[in-house]
């Protein structure tokens, strides 16, 4: 599904694998970098479609009205000391009166079962899911214990199941990451 050779960015998967980095926001970044969403604009002229603009990470700040409100308030965004800027953000159905921002607390991805080519990958929740990524978030883990657990799960997969998998790229990078 994914072209395995060099992409239009000139960065190929092998480069990313070797460096343990991914291409995001127009540069190579650490795999666990706080990768964020993207906005792309296109324009249609006649029968052709053109890509006119893309923006990533803090380039999307301007779209977040709540931040603009906070910027006008005395305490501002009040994000100093958090693990990362958006560490306080929760899904809107998860705030309640008792919600407090903990300096070390981060969003925790719920446990899930991922079916990959007929095999079940069981994942436990872990902290430090710091951002979002086009991958099952269980493809990486924060602590050495989790890392080795996850590493063993991944290496238990026969290499062939990784071929052609939509997650192939990320799993490959994750394996590299686990070694360090």
């Amino acid at each position, binding site marked *: *599904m*994914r*072209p395995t050779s060099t*992409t*239009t*960015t000139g*960065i190929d998967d092998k480069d990313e694998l070797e460096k343990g980095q*991914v*291409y*995001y926001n*127009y540069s190579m970044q650490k795999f666990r970098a706080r990768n*964020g*969403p*993207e*906005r*792309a*604009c*296109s*324009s*249609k*002229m006649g029968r*052709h*479609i*053109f*890509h*006119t*603009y*893309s923006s990533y990470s803090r380039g*999307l700040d301007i*779209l*977040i*009205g*709540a931040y603009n409100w906070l910027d006008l308030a*005395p305490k501002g965004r009040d994000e100093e000391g958090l693990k990362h800027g*958006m560490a306080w*953000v*929760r*899904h*809107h*159905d998860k705030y309640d009166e008792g919600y407090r921002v903990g300096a070390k607390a981060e*969003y925790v*991805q*719920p*446990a*899930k*079962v*991922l*079916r990959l080519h007929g095999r079940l990958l069981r994942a436990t929740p872990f902290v430090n899911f710091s*951002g*979002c*990524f*086009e*991958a*099952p*978030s269980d493809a990486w883990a924060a602590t050495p214990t989790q890392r080795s657990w996850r590493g063993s799960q991944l290496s238990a997969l026969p290499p062939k199941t990784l071929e052609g998998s*939509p997650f192939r790229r990320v799993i490959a990078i994750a394996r590299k990451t686990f070694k360090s």
Partner: protein
Amino acid sequence: MQPKLEKSKMEGPRIVPQAEWLEARKELLKKEKEFSRLRDELSRQRREMPWEKVEKAYVFDGPKGKETLADLFGGRSQLIVYHFMLGPGWKEGCPSCSFISDHIDGSVVHLAARDVRLVVVSRAPLAEIEAFKKRMGWRFDWVSSNATDFNYDYRYR
């Protein structure tokens, strides 16, 4: 400038009479106006960026079935695609994307009136997208790019 900021942080805000407050506010207003003009200028330069032709035919899964990239324009001449990080098998979408997406519904109708279609795209299959969309109470158009290279081609660059 920086040491002064630090100092005021340590000691708390200065409490001043109204006339003095008004002076300070007017000073800040000058900077706010300068920032507005700089932002307009930056937006102008953004619009002057060159364009690149989209060569691949992308087909997405939407509530009405298969939709090409051209279909996503929905009769408008401009399309904004927001990549929402919801991958196949995820129990819920990324919280930061959800935060941004909480701001979308109110804008969609205004954008449409200004010749812009706003569409959200994720790699999760459509059924998973719709389940999460229902939980979050969103109404915006959200399609699956699961069967395309779209995310790879446009997100990592």
